[in-house]
């Protein structure tokens, strides 16, 4: 008996599903970092060029393949050519890796969310040490937010070799994260279609609230000016263009098979060209929007730290020279310092080593990305805001929504081929398949909850998806254009949707995009080869900061 393929209840659900998959944590924590590194406002130029040249065509290609073949990635590629089923399998395997480590971020977001109900926030104060004479040493040396992240959340070990024990708290949060994902996917498009309304729209609400709050914070303009001041010389830096291309590529989630899966649940007559353009534009706009929010918060944090530093210097000088309280201000500090160094050189010399050089620029220059940005820098800014519990709640809810939205796509990429395959779907109902998939992921994901889990996370984050995806998308493009034949594909498309293919897409698919991907692939491969021994940053509890730790040659991890 033939079962009708489940469909999205409306094209809007499909668009929301794609948007909630594409708009993920990378928009919030990777794009602002790249923007800062590669010239602020001028980074938008390579970014938009790459969007038009690489992002939109490849996104459209995947949507068309999915909609035409009406199967998950394995079935779709096998239909294109019986020898290309491996592309689909590769997509599923990469999605498996991604899902395993991506949901750990959701687990951490849950952990912080649950801890946001305390007053004061646990990462805003250092815990008192055993005999109540002072604060914990590790916390004093680092900051309270870093201590909470490295010691209380991760309980990180000094190196990747020391795996330590399974931490039951993150493990519970991981279990909860997978239960939530299971809840959203267990009925297929029926349940996913409803969840994506929330995961696509609510993050925008929270980002808007944060935008308003961020722009009204003291010092926000410093951050925004710093970010958006274009450094035009970065336009000739090839790394800026390569990073723009990479960011577009991974931000849209190409090559995982999720887009093919989502599109396969479409009505054949859906206009996916419009959807492709909308989704890719929305994704880029969200990145820029999120970076405005991030930089206003950066500016606030940097200004706060700078002013604290200046106040510390003022206090030091006031106490050392018994000056009148309030006489020294930020405005006259330099003049008074000059006067004191000339009038009382001996005493000034004693005080000088304790005085730090406070610089707003160096505070702003600390570019951070990834989990460090989300869980250390942002939490540090939040703890200094008024009603910090509310802001913390909002922020981690947003992270969760973004994360779960992306997870829906990742798991769809794995589930769709499984439910499509007759061998599996005949034996088990789709709830059971989804349950098994979530169970396996959860079990493997427990690796990331061990004490060395964050190091494993970094390895997966950096290396699990980059090269494989480039290869997969390259083969996809070449397969459609040259193996299946672009003309045949065009006629299929016309038969399916009743519309023709614009020349622009054909030129991009056949020529420009494959060349770009080959260029990226060659660059990354040579980068890996030339780097030699790979290094990772390990947390040193005695010094309370990160230090590079080389991999020993006999260990096969590197």
């Amino acid at each position, binding site marked *: 008996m*033939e079962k009708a393929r489940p469909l999205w209840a409306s094209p809007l659900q499909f668009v929301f599903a794609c948007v909630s998959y594409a708009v993920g944590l990378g928009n919030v924590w990777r794009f602002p970092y790249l923007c800062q590194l590669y010239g602020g406002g001028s980074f938008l130029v390579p970014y938009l060029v790459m969007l038009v040249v690489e992002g939109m065509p490849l996104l459209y290609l995947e949507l068309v393949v999915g909609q035409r073949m009406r199967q998950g990635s394995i079935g779709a590629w096998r239909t294109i050519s019986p020898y290309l089923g491996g592309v689909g399998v590769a997509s599923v395997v990469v999605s498996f890796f991604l899902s395993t480590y991506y949901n750990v971020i959701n687990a951490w977001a849950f952990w912080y969310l*649950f801890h946001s109900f305390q007053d004061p926030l646990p990462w805003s104060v250092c815990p008192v040490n055993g005999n*109540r004479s002072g604060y914990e040493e590790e916390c004093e040396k680092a900051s309270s937010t870093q201590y909470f992240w490295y010691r209380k959340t991760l309980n990180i070990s000094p190196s990747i070799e020391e795996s330590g024990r399974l931490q039951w708290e993150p493990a519970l949060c991981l279990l909860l994260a997978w239960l939530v994902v299971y*809840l959203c996917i267990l*009925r297929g498009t029926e349940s996913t279609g409803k969840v994506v309304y929330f995961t696509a729209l609510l993050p925008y609400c929270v980002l808007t609230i944060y935008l308003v709050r961020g722009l009204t914070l003291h010092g926000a303009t410093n951050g925004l000016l710093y970010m958006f001041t274009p450094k035009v010389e970065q336009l000739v830096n090839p790394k800026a263009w390569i990073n723009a291309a990479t960011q577009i590529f991974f931000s849209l989630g190409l090559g995982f098979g999720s887009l093919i899966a989502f599109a396969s649940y479409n009505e054949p007559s859906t206009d996916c060209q419009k959807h492709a353009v909308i989704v890719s534009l929305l994704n880029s706009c969200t990145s820029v929007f999120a970076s405005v929010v991030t930089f206003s918060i950066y500016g606030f944090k940097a200004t706060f730290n700078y002013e604290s530093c200046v106040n510390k210097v003022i206090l030091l000088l006031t106490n050392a020279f*018994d000056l009148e*309280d*309030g006489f020294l201000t930020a405005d006259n500090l330099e003049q008074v310092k000059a006067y004191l160094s000339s009038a009382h050189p001996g005493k000034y010399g004693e005080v000088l080593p304790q005085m730090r050089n406070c610089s707003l620029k160096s505070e702003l220059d600390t570019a951070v990305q990834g989990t460090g940005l989300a869980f250390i820098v942002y939490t540090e800014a939040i703890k200094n805001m008024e009603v910090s519990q509310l802001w913390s709640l909002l922020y981690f809810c947003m992270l969760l929504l973004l994360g779960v939205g992306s997870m829906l796509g990742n798991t769809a990429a794995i589930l769709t081929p499984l439910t499509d395959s007759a061998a599996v779907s005949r034996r088990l109902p789709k709830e059971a398949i989804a349950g098994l998939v979530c169970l396996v992921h959860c079990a493997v994901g427990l690796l990331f909850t061990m004490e060395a889990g964050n190091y494993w996370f970094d390895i997966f984050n950096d290396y699990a998806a980059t090269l494989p995806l480039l290869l997969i998308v390259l083969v996809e493009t070449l397969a459609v254009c040259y193996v299946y034949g672009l003309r045949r594909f065009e006629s299929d498309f016309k038969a399916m949707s009743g519309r023709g293919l614009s020349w622009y897409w054909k030129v991009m698919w056949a020529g420009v995009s494959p060349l770009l991907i080959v260029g990226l692939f060659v660059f990354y491969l040579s980068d890996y080869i030339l780097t030699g021994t790979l290094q990772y940053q390990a947390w040193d509890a005695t010094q309370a900061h990160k230090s590079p730790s080389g991999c020993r040659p006999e260990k096969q991890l590197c």
Partner: protein
Amino acid sequence: MAKAALSGECIFPPGLPCVFHSERMLWPFFFLVAAIHAELCQPDGENAFKVRLSIRTALGDKAAQLLWSLQKVSCKLSDEWLNCPWGSSIKAKFSPLLCLFLCIYFRYAWDSNEEYLFKAMVAFSMRKVPNRETTEWHSSSCKFVTEVLFSSTIGISHVLLCNVTQRVSFWFVVTDPLKNYTLPAVEVESAIRMNRNRINNAFFLNDQTLEFLKIPSTLAPPTDSSVPIWIIIFGVIFCIVIVAVMLLVLSGIRQRRSSFPFQSQEHSIPKYLKGKPWKLVVNW
């Protein structure tokens, strides 16, 4: 002294000077006492503590913020009258009345009255300490004498301040009412620590803005409830999610079971009609 007692000899101390009743002799006596007292209170002296106040940091900021948000009004009169030192450093001009109000309400200048209050607070803290007993060998009566220092005898005159700077910082000592020496630092420290909160409140300051330099402040004990809050919230959300999953799974199973009788009908549809759109079947 102990040796002398064992041998049976008593060593009599030299006779104390007579007390003169003539009033003219009292003035040099006062000066002598003052001089001795001045010697007791010295910077880095024995049992002396340095105190540092940051009144403007604590109180001036609130007013300064208010002033900055009210846009530029003049303050020359109140500047001179109340000795508000901000006028010189803040370039904006403020209205006399407003500045007056803010100066009075928020801020106070450190003068002799504030010093009197400080001495009173320190004396108050020392009075709250239980009475001290000390046992000493008295050579005059050749026996051990227990002396009790009644805390209630400590008064304002026994707290000495010296070296007041513009910062505002000064040194203080607490002298023994009976004798002419300073009370041990340990006692003073424990007395101040126990009443730190009251002393801070008298001046609208806190541990960071009213610093006793050698007296560390006690950190607040960690408020740990028996069950961490996060576990409670985790439990609630976990239960909600489990219930929702169960409901969906059970309703899915029920749906499949109720649609089962229809599936046998599908088998009776002829093969050539399968896959054709529904419209065609109706027409046919």
